[in-house]
């Protein structure tokens, strides 16, 4: 059973077996991600628990045409962590907002495409030039704004922006090649 199918099994059957499978895969990764952002171990475990509970509750809203399991769970963990460190909830884009100008419906083969894109991305990330990879990692996994990265690395803000931009362009091209 793929990770995506496990989420779907939770939505369909409230499958605790599928939940346990997801937990085994994601919980230690989420813990690592959250601890990298400067959270102590106990709090990190709590945020992971909250994230996985949300995965269980929101499983029905997961759409494998829109996102891979790892992407969906990453966004939940990201928001849970922000909730933890900030007073109010993060203002979140609401896909059901009636004011949305509707996106075109995605074609039926999208899940396959998403999974291919994920695989390509993971490879592409590992072969980025180090100077770009470090900055992208800081932007995504060390909770640092471009400005903070610039000051940490003693680089001009413009240099940080352009290196991250280059890296993202490369990564996006990997995705677009498949579309």
């Amino acid at each position: 059973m793929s990770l995506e199918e496990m989420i779907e099994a939770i939505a369909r059957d409230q499958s605790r077996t599928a939940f346990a499978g997801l937990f085994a895969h994601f919980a230690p990764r989420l813990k690592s991600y959250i601890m990298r952002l400067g959270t102590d171990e106990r709090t990190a475990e709590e945020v992971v628990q909250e994230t996985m509970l949300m995965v269980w509750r929101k499983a029905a809203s997961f759409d494998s045409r829109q996102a891979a399991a790892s992407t969906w769970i990453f966004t939940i963990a990201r928001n849970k962590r922000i909730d933890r460190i900030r007073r109010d909830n993060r203002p979140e884009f609401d896909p059901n907002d009636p004011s949305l100008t509707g996106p075109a419906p995605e074609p039926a083969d999208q899940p396959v495409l998403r999974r291919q894109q994920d695989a390509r991305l993971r490879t592409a990330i590992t072969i980025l030039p180090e100077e770009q990879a470090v900055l992208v990692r800081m932007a995504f996994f060390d909770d640092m704004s471009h400005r903070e990265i610039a000051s940490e690395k003693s680089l001009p803000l413009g240099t940080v922006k352009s290196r991250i931009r280059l890296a993202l362009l490369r990564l996006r091209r990997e995705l677009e090649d498949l579309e």
Partner: protein
Amino acid sequence: MPRFHVQEDLLVDYASGSLPRPVALLVAAHLSFCDQCRREVATYETIGGAYLETIDPIPMAADALEAALAGLGDGNARPRPAPSDAGDARLPLSSFVEGRIRENSWTRRARGIEEIEMIAEDDHFSASLLRIQPGVSIPNHTHTGEELTLVLQGGFTDSRGHYGPGDVCRADADISHGPVADSDGPCLCLVVADGPVKLTGLVGRMLSPFLKL
């Protein structure tokens, strides 16, 4: 579809979760108008997901799964709360914005310009809603810090063009502009600025060099 978008680095920081809350609010509001930027954020979130797969796992406590299973309760489908009934205005981020409009009253900042503070200073940024009456112009001004203005309803024009719902107008110390609200109805904007908000409020701060407020 908006013509003026938020910069790419803000979309990256939004996707990774590192934006100050006021800026995240503005980006989220823009996303609710802009399919193109939504796709871009989705790409960055995919990168975040891919990183999650490549990270070195750290084992959870021995009883973590047991505790998680015990906390699940029955069922998983929670019905979405019905959208709030907010009269005429269907605003993006309805719960956040409309709630604050309901709970707060508008404060007059200048002739034809009113403000509701949304988020007081957070990571050096603050967010306010501005309501500008039809045809009101804000005198030509520059900014001490960076300021982002998102149109929620109505529109305005400055030297760079016309801004309608979803458009983001970026201004900093290098840009001098004098926005004029559209004449066919009030213009509702979300304004995010860096630097602490002075007692005079955002518009007061913008206007003060000119009007000696």
